């Protein structure tokens, strides 16, 4: 089978890859590029474990064909930390015990980032709907929602946060 050559931007870096026509972006990330942080929970867009941000839009990478990302920009969990500094969401998830097994965590972090990019000061309800496309079976969501709210408040009051730490 012939493979398509695709050029795109992944976590800020220009990259290219070869993929089959029906290969999903999820499979490209994991199987072609070795980026295993993005997880597959269902393959049908119903669990959110494979969430990535595509040109600023939160999507399930299992519902995107690889060749579609030609010329576009993808953000994954691997690009969330800024060098040696974790994203405030990653910090709040760690400190707030927002995960147990951790397999849904990358998807939640990416979805939460997309939410805060769009709405920096969400209410609890907005957070709950903002991550309603992400399934977690371990936590009952309580500590995840608290951690996202905590990160939002850290990000909107960076000074307070710096003093606290």
């Amino acid at each position, binding site marked *: 089978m012939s493979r398509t050559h695709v050029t795109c931007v992944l976590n800020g870096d220009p990259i290219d890859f070869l993929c089959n*026509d*029906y290969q*999903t972006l999820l499979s490209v990330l994991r199987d072609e590029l070795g980026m295993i942080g993005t997880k597959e929970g269902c*393959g*049908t*867009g*119903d669990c*959110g474990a494979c*969430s990535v941000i*595509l040109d600023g*839009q*939160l*999507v*399930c990478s*299992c*519902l*995107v*064909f690889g*060749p*579609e990302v030609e010329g576009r920009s993808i953000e994954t969990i691997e690009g969330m930390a800024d060098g040696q500094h974790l994203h405030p969401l990653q910090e709040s998830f760690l400190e707030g015990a927002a995960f147990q097994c951790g397999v849904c965590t990358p998807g939640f972090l990416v*979805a939460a980032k*997309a*939410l805060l990019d769009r709405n920096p000061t969400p209410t609890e309800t907005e957070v709950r*709907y*903002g991550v*309603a*496309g*992400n399934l977690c079976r371990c936590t009952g969501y309580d500590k995840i929602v608290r951690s996202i709210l905590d990160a939002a408040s850290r990000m909107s009051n960076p000074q307070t946060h710096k003093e606290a730490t």
Partner: protein
Amino acid sequence: MELLSANPGAAVFAGATDLIPQIQGGRPEPSLVVDLKRIPETSRIEAHNGVWRVGAAIPAAVLTAHAGLSTTFPGLVEAAGLIGSDQIQGRATLGGNLCNASPAADSVPPLVALGADAIIVGPGGERSAPVSEVVIGPGATSLDQAEFITGFRIPSPSQGSSDAYERFIPRTEMDIAVVGSAARIRVDGDGRCEEASVVLAAVAPTVVEVGAASGILAGRVIPTDSARDPFWDELGEAVVSCCNPIDDKRGTAEFRRRVAQVLARRTVVTAARRARETL
């Protein structure tokens, strides 16, 4: 189009939120997939002379973020905002929602209630057809193999007119509608209903318009709450007479008949309130 004509096994996609799971679920891989998004007009939103043109391949998330659309067609936009999760709305489109031809598609009832036309392009050029005529049964459309939808023409609502959509699902997100209802209401200066359209999803093989709704509601002052008034029973009967539901994994026929009445009432109330607010 030549590609589509030459490839009977080809599939057109925009958001692929239905196509990819279908392939995962055993649908034979299409001989060719055509990404509609690469055709610029499928991604445009324009308003000219009282008619909106909304591209077929625009993700729901873009529609819900569009201020003009949200004020003009609140019901259509709330339907788009109910299709799956935020992730799905980053991909799912009006064109795909219609052409997947599910009786439970959320965005189709408001399009029908608004009197929207689908702009269809094929080897013979461009034609248009009422949205209500595109889907002919579960999974089946009236489009030819080489035709696809590039967008929708939706007449701007006149003053005193607005719409609403509501669906019932067992959870708060991530489900397919067990029942859906769209309503478009036009009221006069006194807030009295002049014209109504009620369109239901998931209660029949295709979405269905409650033809009697306008006659029942015309001349009524629709209350701000959904308190019991005799004409609601009349509307309920009209709703039930349009329903031809099935028992399936998502709900029973009886449940669908009952909840369709509830949602029809609720959406009429909401649309009427919004309509009065435009005055």
